[in-house]
C-alpha cells in the first residue's frame, strides 16, 4: 500500500456546515453494485438547485474543474454512512479534504479509501476558501507530514488525528492486511467473549 504524505493541486471550495452525505450523493444513485460512475453525480441536486437559481455550484464551476482538494467547513459528511459519498468526491477528482470537522463515519471511510481529511480552524477554512475563490488557480498543498495546508504560498496549521496520520504516512491506511495478520489473536479474543461461546 502506498504512503500518502502530500497532496497538491488546485482546490474547490464548498462552503457550509453540516453538509450531509445525502447532499453529496443522493440516495437514488445508491442503486448500484459498483462505485464506478458516481463521480459525475457528486452534489447532483445541490448543483441543479444552484443552476435553477442562476448560481453555479463549485462542482460545476469551470474555474474549479480538475481540483484535487475540497475545502469545506464544519461537520462535513454528516448523516448516512454511505461510502458512496466519499467515493463520489474521489471519483470526481478530489484527493484530499480540508475542513473544520467531519462526521466520524465519513472520516473512517476516507481513511480506508486513502483520501486524507485534515482539520483546520474555522477561520482558516474560510480564509483558504477565500483565497481559492479569488484565485482558483492557486496551488493548495495538503502536507500530512508537516501538518500544514498551504494556499497560494500562505501556510495554515492543519491536523490529522495521530492514528490516521500514521496510517497515511506509513502506507497502512488500507487496514485489511494488518487486520488479517496473526489471525490466531482474533480467534483468541473470540474465545474469551462469553456470547461468542453461547455462554457455555
Amino acid at each position, binding site marked *: 500500500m502506498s504512503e500518502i504524505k502530500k497532496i497538491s493541486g488546485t482546490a474547490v471550495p464548498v*462552503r*457550509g*456546515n*453540516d453538509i*450531509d452525505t*445525502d*447532499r453529496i450523493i*443522493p*440516495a*437514488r444513485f*445508491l*442503486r*448500484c*453494485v*459498483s*462505485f464506478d460512475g458516481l463521480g459525475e453525480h457528486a452534489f447532483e*441536486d*445541490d448543483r*441543479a438547485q444552484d443552476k435553477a437559481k442562476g448560481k453555479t455550484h463549485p462542482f460545476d464551476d469551470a474555474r474549479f474543474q480538475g481540483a484535487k482538494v475540497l475545502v469545506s467547513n*464544519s*461537520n462535513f459528511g*454528516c*448523516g*448516512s*454512512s*454511505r*461510502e*458512496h459519498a466519499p467515493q463520489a468526491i474521489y471519483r470526481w477528482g478530489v484527493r484530499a479534504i480540508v475542513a473544520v470537522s*467531519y*462526521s*466520524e*463515519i465519513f472520516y*473512517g*471511510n476516507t481513511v*480506508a*479509501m486513502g483520501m486524507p481529511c485534515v482539520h483546520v480552524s*474555522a477561520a482558516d477554512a474560510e480564509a483558504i476558501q477565500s483565497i481559492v475563490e479569488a484565485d482558483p488557480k492557486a496551488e493548495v498543498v495538503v502536507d500530512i507530514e508537516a501538518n500544514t495546508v498551504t494556499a497560494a504560498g500562505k501556510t495554515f496549521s492543519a491536523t490529522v*488525528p*495521530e*492514528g*490516521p496520520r*500514521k*496510517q497515511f504516512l*506509513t502506507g*497502512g491506511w488500507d*487496514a*485489511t492486511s494488518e*487486520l*488479517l495478520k*496473526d*489471525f490466531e*489473536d*482474533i480467534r483468541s*479474543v*473470540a474465545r474469551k*467473549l*462469553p456470547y461468542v461461546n*453461547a*455462554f*457455555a
Partner: protein
Amino acid sequence: MAQTLYDKVFDAHVVRKLSSGQYQLFIGLHMIHEVTSPQAFEMLRDRNGSVPFPERTVATVDHIVPTEDQSRPYKDDLAEQMMKAIETNCKQFGIRLYQPGSGKQGVVHIVAPEQGLTQPGMTVACGDSHTATHGAFGAIAFGIGTSQVRDVLASQTLSMGRLKVRRIEVNGKLNPGVYAKDVILYILRKLTAKGGVGFAYEFAGSVIDAMSMEERMTVCNMAIEGGARCGYINPDQTTFDYLKGRPEAPTGAAWDKAVEWWKSVASDKDAVYADVVKYEAADIEPTVTWGISPDQSVGVNEAIPSTSDFSATEKANIEEAYEYMDVKPGQPIAGTKVDVVFIGSCTNGRISDLREAARVAELHGGKVPAGIKAFVVPGSEIVKKEAEAEGLDKVFLKHGFEWRQAGCSMCLAMNPDKLVGRQISASTSNRNFKGRQGSPSGRTLLLSPAMAAVAALEGKITDVRPVLAKKGA
C-alpha cells in the same frame, strides 16, 4: 477502576493496538443489507478473501424493497440487480439472509433486536449509520462504510479509535403526548448535529430507565444525528425481559450466565465521563423539525426561531434552511400544511409506534383528507403480522391511511415511495436533509408517530395533546 460500559465493552473486544495507534476491535454482530455490501464483497473477491466467521454476519434486505408490489423480478432493474447480488454473495459465503417472505425480513435495525441477535456487551457494526439503534441493549453499535464492511467480512475486526463518553440524563416524567422521539429531538436541538462528534452518548436518567426497549431504540437510533457514532443505554431488567425467549437469545443455564455477564458490563456507579448533561422531562414538548438538519426543531407550540437564537457561525445554515423550507422566522410550526405523511422507519416503525399512531387515529375519529397521502410501513414482517393480528391495519385503512409491506421506504426513498416536487412530508423517520425523501426539492418535518397520525388527519401540523385528552390519555 470504575469504568463506563463503553470502555468495558471496547476493552473486551480489543485484539491489539495497530501500528497506527488505532485499535483492532472484534465485531460480535455484523449486519449487512443490499445497499452497502455489494462493493464490499467485490473488494473481498479481488483479494481472494474469505469470511472466517460467517455465523457472526446476518443479512436482510430493506432499503430498496418495494412496499407495494414485491413480486420478482422488481420493476426497477437496478433494485433487482442489488437483490441478486446479496443473494449470490450470502450463498457463496454462507451468510444467513432474511428474505422477503421468510417472516423475518425487515429494516435491519428492527430485525436484529426482534430475533434476539443484538445483546448487551456486544460490538455491533453495520454499513448503515443507524446501527446506533442497537446501543439500546447496552451494546457498542456503530455504522461503518463499505471498505469497513469488507474488513469485517474478511477478519471479523475493524480498525477503530476510542471515543469519549458523554452521559446524557433525562430526569423526571414525560408529559402525556411526549414520546421517545420528542426526547431525542429535544436532545439534538440542545446539543446540535455536530455536538457529539468524538463522543459515544450514554443515555440515562429516570425517563430513560422507565422507557421500553422500543422507546430506547428510538432514542439511540438518532444518536448519530447528533454526531455521536454510537449511543447506548445500560442494560437492566427491561433489557433482559425483552430478550428472554427470542429465537437467538440464550436459554436454560446459559441464560442465567448471560444475565450475569450483561449486568457486569453496565457502567459502574462512579464511572467518570468526559462530559455530563442533564435535562428535565417537563421541559420537553411534542417536537417538530422545521429545517434541513435534525437539530433544527421546535416544540409544536413554538415559532420558527430567528437567526439571533443561534451562534454567528450557524447563521448561513439557518438562512439556508429558511430558504429551502420556505419558512420565515417567527412563523408558528403548528398549522404547517403537509402533503404526505410517512409512518415507519428504523426510528419509529415498531409495533408500539404503530399502536400509538392507530390509537391517535381512533381518538381523533377523522379521515385523512382528500389530496393528502398517508401511509404506514411496518418495520418488519414480524411487526406487520403482529399489527394485523391486533387489527391495526384495519384501523389505519378505516381512517384513510395506506397499509404497506415492510422496508425502509420513504425514510430515504430508494424504493418507489418518494415525495414529488416541493411536497412537504410529516415523517416519523430520522432525517430531514435536503432531498432526503426522494424529491430533490422535497421537504421533511420529523415528528413522533402520534404527531404524524394527527398531522395526517388534520392535513397540517397539529398538537396531539388535545386529541389524547379527549378521552383521557
